[in-house]
């Protein structure tokens, strides 16, 4: 039992961090970023290149991923999303753009980094074993702690920094924020860059444990979508809650339902649909997000 909870916590921490970036972008621009998973993969490959191929320390790889993705995110917002949002009649049109970007990043990743699964050597060896009741490798504990620290840092940033406050104002009411003198264009760009950076950071963190391959992008996006649906789209606390809930559900479901065959995910997905039918705005979302 303890093991299941610990697994769920670890999964939840990494999921929450992925969902945070997605929900930030959504809350600022009402864009469902289909390319979020691809950004995560790109972050993983950047860290891999820096650590495994150039032989630099892991922390350099992480910073490299964060910077690369922040730049990529800012570019995408400035040159792609901004003009399209301005000119399209229906805001859903950005979905096609986001999907196009997802395909594009997939293609670039395939050409630059190849089709193989990549990984970075373990950063710490050894396994924490408490009487076979909780077994957790040290590197997983480290990554889990780092993920939680990053989530905390992100919340503090959003809460107390000038940019964070501006972005929260933007998310609440775009027009009102503009009237109050918030530079909408600037903070949209910063927000997008920040969201992309978070995706890159998770990619960089997880490359040490799960590795990375170009196929992970799409499924990661879908998982992240599910998490923000559970918590409520565009709400930061909701994304965190959604991440932990999905992590817990997987951990428990995979153990309890293992005997019944291939139904764990069927049950998770079906219960998510039922949940949303009963509570359409998720746990903490605004109605009709």
């Amino acid at each position, binding site marked *: 039992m303890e093991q299941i909870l610990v697994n769920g916590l670890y999964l939840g921490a990494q999921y929450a961090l992925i969902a945070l970036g997605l929900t930030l972008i*959504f809350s600022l621009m009402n864009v*469902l970023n*289909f390319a979020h998973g691809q950004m995560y993969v790109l972050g993983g490959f950047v860290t891999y290149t820096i650590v495994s191929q150039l032989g630099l320390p892991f922390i350099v790889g992480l910073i490299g991923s964060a910077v690369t993705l922040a730049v990529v995110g800012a570019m995408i917002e400035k040159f*792609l999303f901004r*003009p*399209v949002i301005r*000119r*399209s*009649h*229906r805001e*859903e*049109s950005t*979905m*096609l*753009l986001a*999907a*196009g*970007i997802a*395909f*594009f990043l*997939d*293609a*670039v990743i*395939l*050409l630059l980094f190849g089709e193989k699964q990549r990984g970075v050597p373990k950063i710490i060896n050894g396994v924490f074993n408490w009487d076979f009741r909780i077994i957790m490798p040290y590197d997983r504990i480290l990554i889990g702690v780092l993920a939680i620290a990053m989530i905390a840092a992100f919340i503090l940033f959003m809460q107390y920094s000038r940019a964070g406050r501006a972005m929260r104002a933007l998310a609440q009411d775009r027009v009102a924020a503009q009237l109050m003198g918030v530079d909408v264009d600037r903070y949209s760009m910063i927000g997008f860059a920040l969201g992309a950076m978070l995706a890159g950071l998770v990619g960089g963190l997880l490359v040490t444990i799960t590795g990375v391959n170009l196929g992970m992008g*799409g499924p990661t996006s*879908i998982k992240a*979508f*599910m998490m923000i*649906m559970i918590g409520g*789209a565009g709400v930061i606390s909701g994304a965190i809650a959604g991440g932990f809930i999905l992590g817990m559900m997987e951990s428990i479901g995979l153990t309890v339902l293992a005997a019944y*065959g*291939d*139904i764990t*995910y*069927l049950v998770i*997905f*079906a219960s*998510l*649909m*039922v949940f*949303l*039918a009963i509570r*359409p*705005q*998720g746990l903490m979302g605004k109605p*009709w*997000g």
Partner: protein
Amino acid sequence: MSTSTRLAGVAAFLLAVFVLVPWAIAASGRWDFYYTLTSVALLSIASAGVWLTFYIGRINIGQGAYALVGGYVSAILMTKAGFSFWLTLPLAGLFCAGLSVLIGLPILRLRGVYFAMVTLVLTEVARLSALALPVTNGAKGITSIPLPGEVSLFGLTLIPDFATLANPKLAFYLVAALLMVLCFAALYRIVNSRLGHLCRSLQQNEELSASIGVNTAYLRVLAYSISSFFGGIAGAMFVAISQSIYPSSFQVADSVNFMLNCFLGGLGYVFGPMLGTLLLYFGWDLLFTTGRFQLLIYSSLLIVLMLVLPNGILSLLDRKGGRR
């Protein structure tokens, strides 16, 4: 647009689809285009369904689920109950329509991205169900499904047995094109009827239309079930061509593509999904010669297209004549 120009347009389209295309293929010897165009026709039927849900203001990323269900209904009826393919085709559509009523009643209360995400999950649920249910033969899929058989009335052969045809590709193309024409005619009729006006009112403001006495719940379910009907028959038709079906025959990528087809063609235009499907599918096929750069070029073109025409390709018409 006057009635006569509209009729002329329809006649020209029918001529192109049923006469010019077969003639051009025979003349150029590009027989592989038959399958490409058959796919386009069928995928555009499914996309037309997605478009109809867009029309009531819902982003539908779950059409792959109904295509898969439709395919399985057709395959199971043919292999286990010995039905004729031609009977299973409408049955697959009806089954999907019925199923979509059950699923739609709760989930159509959702809006915006919430509805979009639930439908996306629905595709995955369909795949996992196909793997888990005994009737679908699970992971092994259903293979060696017979080709469509003969249909005759009073000894008169209406549709010949596809297995005896010298060129089943042409036959499949004609059937698919006919289905496509029928579906788009139906869609056009719906959009330009009272029902269509009500749907538009739903797209703009649901509360308002409910307040003036529109039965929004009924309308939503009706539109969604028509949409799913389209998905079901498209899926069933594909089964007849590939003579096999697997849980992965229609997956999330297909659902997303159906949606992209609608965006690309233009959400404000009935024939948007048809044009969008043609371009997306044909585009990928034509880029096949570029080898490893295929995806790069394809996605770059998508992005550029979106930057130039964010409201879909058919929005070009707006600029010229300002008409819809």
